[in-house]
């Protein structure tokens, strides 16, 4: 076990100070705004929980929240299986492995607004490859006009952008499986599927949890890509939570309600994060116990 040493706090202190400056201080400001009606910098009135009540009743917010949850679930449903499949088919050694890794990872390095720009062009039926190809196939595709098309385009864009993250995590997980496991499976005459189901999948559990956690949280905060691609439209078909908040806070300068909304948003994420983190820990230890007993 690690030795107990309270002086280690001194080493952690700089991080705590940095994060306090960039997270706790701003969060306190948000709390402060959320209970006041700010008419001008000099004139502000204490309103208590009025904004929270108003935000809770906000129909538009409910819409944005539902769209957000639907989107995040769709993202997980597509990216996790696809990422696993991709990791399984990536070559493990040699120059091919390096080349595939670099090509797969490249979409992660593109600034988020450029991702939006790329897809904005790519999906146009007149000048974009995908849009033109779909139009040639006789599909009536128009991501600026049709809500379904816009939503699907944002989803495909996110799959393109973030599946590599899941794939890289799973790839690292697969590489960590000792050869002895595969040898044992070969002696038992296990099928490919059995190897996947009883060796690879359980061993991937740890990294899959991180992948699910990261993808869920990040898709819950998505802002830049849909903002550039569709601007939240048509109508508000692709207006997710972050964008709705930004519209309120920066666009309309409704400080009080925006702050109350921020806090609720933050609490939702914190709650989901806490549940997932604990679940992840429990599943992780449960599987370890299984392995050591079995």
């Amino acid at each position, binding site marked *: *076990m*690690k*030795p107990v*040493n*309270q002086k280690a706090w001194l*080493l*952690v202190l*700089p*991080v705590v100070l*940095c*994060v306090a400056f*960039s*997270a706790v201080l*701003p*969060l306190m400001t*948000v709390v402060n*705004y959320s209970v006041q009606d700010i008419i001008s910098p000099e004139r502000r009135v204490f309103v208590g929980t009025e904004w929270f009540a108003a935000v809770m009743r906000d129909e538009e917010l409910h819409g944005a929240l539902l769209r957000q949850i639907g989107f995040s679930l769709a993202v997980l449903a597509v990216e996790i299986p696809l990422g696993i499949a991709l990791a*399984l*088919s*990536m070559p493990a050694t040699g120059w091919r492995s390096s080349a595939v890794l*670099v*090509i*797969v*990872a*490249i979409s992660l*390095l593109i*600034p*988020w*607004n*450029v991702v939006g*720009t*790329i897809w904005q*062009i790519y999906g146009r039926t007149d*000048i*974009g*490859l*995908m849009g033109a190809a779909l139009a040639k196939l006789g599909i009536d595709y128009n991501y600026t006009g049709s809500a379904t098309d816009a939503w699907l385009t944002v989803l495909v864009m996110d799959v*393109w952008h973030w599946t*590599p993250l899941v794939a*890289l*995590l799973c790839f690292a997980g697969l*590489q960590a499986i000792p050869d002895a496991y595969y040898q044992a499976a070969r002696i038992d005459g296990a099928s490919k599927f059995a190897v996947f189901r009883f060796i690879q999948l359980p061993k991937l559990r*740890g*990294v899959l949890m*991180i992948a699910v956690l990261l993808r869920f*949280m990040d898709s819950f*905060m998505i*802002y*830049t890509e849909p903002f*550039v691609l569709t601007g939240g439209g048509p109508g508000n078909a692709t207006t997710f939570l*972050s*964008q709705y908040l930004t519209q309120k*806070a920066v666009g309309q300068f409704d400080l009080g309600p*925006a*702050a109350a909304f*921020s*806090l609720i*948003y*933050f609490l939702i*994420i914190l709650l989901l994060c806490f549940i997932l983190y604990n679940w992840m820990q429990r599943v992780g230890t449960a599987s370890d116990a299984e392995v050591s007993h079995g």
Partner: protein
Amino acid sequence: MDKRFRKRVFFLALYLVFAILPVYWMINMSFKTNEEILSTFSLWPNDFTLQHYRTIFTDESWYSGYINSLIYVGINTVISLLVALPAAYAFSRYSFLGDKHVFFWLLTNRMTPPAVFLLPFFQLYTTLGMMDTHIAVALAHLLFNVPLAVWILEGFMSGVPREIDETAYIDGYSFPRFFLTIFIPLIKAGVGVAAFFCFMFSWVELLMARTLTSVNAKPIVATMTRTVSASGMDWGVLAAAGVLTIVPGAVVIWFVRHYIAKGFAMGRV
């Protein structure tokens, strides 16, 4: 067996095409003239031009965006690593009061939507008189980069046997001397990976960078969001600017390609 292998390669190839095509399309567009982009549909530039790149390298409002981005990303990466290194060491080597809680609290910051902090950051940096400076953006980005750096470094440090520390202390090394001359060289790869991820996440972030800057520190990502000129959208320049934003990441990824996958999963596989 052979058939299955072929199926696998086919799937991989299909995905790689899916991954590459959008990027190819942007590169393709950046070498076309604006007339060609808007009037004809072509799979490669018929009328090859470097005009858009020339515009970016000669127009100050464009190239200063790249310089501004590189400055604040650099400051951010340095600060993140400097504060994260000792903290990650503490987390990997000792238990202390509230260590698990602090670690979880750090992770929650990684998961806070930047949009929540827009307003207070605006207020905070206005009060401090730091609006539109590189350091403001660098400090704001610490929000998600410091937890990430601590997380990655902790994983790599836990992979170093504790006997090394103990031997060094017995040999009379002080903590700073041991840390700088023995320990950091041992986790070079980890420092590289952490630096890479800090660089990347700060480089790709738009929302905060755009809110905290107006002219002097305006990043390239913000410049790109308004390329609508009198004659409509300047797609060619936009595509060229996009291609140039991929270059730094693509260069760095080549150096850390063996560690990228590990960096994310370190200590958890």
